[in-house]
């Protein structure tokens, strides 16, 4: 098992779902159950934290990116409010 912090949200949630399934199936040794429980709670905390604190990151294709092999990215700077409604 890798450190929780190294997981993506999706991986963490998938592991949590699988772990709960294993737990629900029963027939676990106490040792294993306690391990799963502790890991599960870590994953819950991590997932919640991700959802609570994540800030949407926005970047845009660099102006020359439209033709390049692997397009470069630049920070997104919202242009001045525009009259265009679209």
């Amino acid at each position, binding site marked *: 098992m890798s450190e929780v912090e190294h997981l993506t949200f999706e991986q963490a949630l998938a592991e949590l779902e699988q772990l709960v399934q294993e737990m629900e199936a029963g027939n676990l040794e106490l040792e294993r159950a306690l391990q799963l429980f502790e890991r599960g709670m870590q994953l819950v905390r991590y997932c919640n934290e991700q*959802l609570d604190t994540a800030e949407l990151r926005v970047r845009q294709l660099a102006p020359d990116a439209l033709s*390049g092999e692997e*397009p470069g990215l630049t920070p997104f700077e919202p242009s001045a409010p525009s009259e265009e409604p679209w």
Partner: protein
Amino acid sequence: MSEQLALFPTQDEEGLPRIFTVSEVTQRIRVWLEADRVLQDLWLVGEVSNWRQSPAGHIYFTLKDEQATLRCVLWRSNAHQVGYLPSGDGETVLAHGYISVYDPQGVYQLYVDELQPLGLGSWYVRFEELKRRLEAEGLFARPRRPLPRFPQRIGVVTSPSGAVLRDILNVLRRRYPLAEVILAPTLVQGEDAPPQIVRALQAIARVPGVDVVILARGGGSIEDLWAFNDERVARAIAASPLPVVCGVGHETDFTIADFVADVRAPTPSAAAELVTPDRAELQRHIQALRRTLAVACFDLITRLRRRLEAEKRALRQLSPRVTLQRQRQHVDELALTIVRALRYELALRRERLSGLHHRLEVLNPAATLARGYAIVRRQDDRRVVMRVAQVSSGDRLHVQVSDGTFASTVD
């Protein structure tokens, strides 16, 4: 709508059928018609007939096809602005406007605000022709790529300025801020828009990690949205290696891009919702998982504790003290059994003894003597004489009778 309809109860307070006035019914029909978003903003095609202009400058005509006719009004103020005025009856035109009711005559009609000729170059014909061609080619029926459940990088192809991008970012921020947005800025209107959109779609697919693309534009007239009815754009969407969600214009606007896209969203904001899971829903999901986890763990511990209790009881049953007690009780029981058996045997013997005694009584020879018999023994050896041959003359005999004995001699 439902509130408005509630203004028209069909029964009075006494439960009798409500009597409507003509005005009320007409008003009800108007409410129905005006609640229909399609009927309030539509393009339609038809052949002009009964074209006539009133002295006030308003134009009245009828649009018809093989099966139906529709009354139309073009107010004087709009008549100056429309792109095209037909020269008379028999022409086929495109008309834009809304449907409503003209109360005094009890008719519904189209209130026209735009007219266009249906020549070969008209957008309607071009749209229909392209749609037919691409559909025949199978472009609309190609298998749809599934959207990722948790997008990591969301490509957004739209105008970098304007409300649409802001709306999309707001929705993404609210629903799933874990994702990263890669904006591919492009024109979304005008002649240069289609090639730019194509390039943006191609470029965004080359950015590593992008797993879904939103192609969006705000509402506008059919001309404003025309870039999304462009064949190059349609083919670029179909060729995209990533799933494309198309959110162009309003709910009622359909473009070729909508038909080709993997998912058609009614609006740009709806497109942003379609590509993301909802944060609040995820939080509820995680809470439920957490509860299940805790309950499962608690259950397991309870189960183990119960098993432990059972084992403890079993162990107690096996302890030496219990064995000892059990053996002591066994001994007690055995002792009791023996005593009982002894008593029985004793009683049995006593019974037999008294039986024997009785029989002895019966057999007692004394009783026989009393009846007049005598026991004769030889004097010398005391043997009982039972046959004549046992004695000779002169032998001394001993005779026992019931009350004593006497001696005698054989003659």
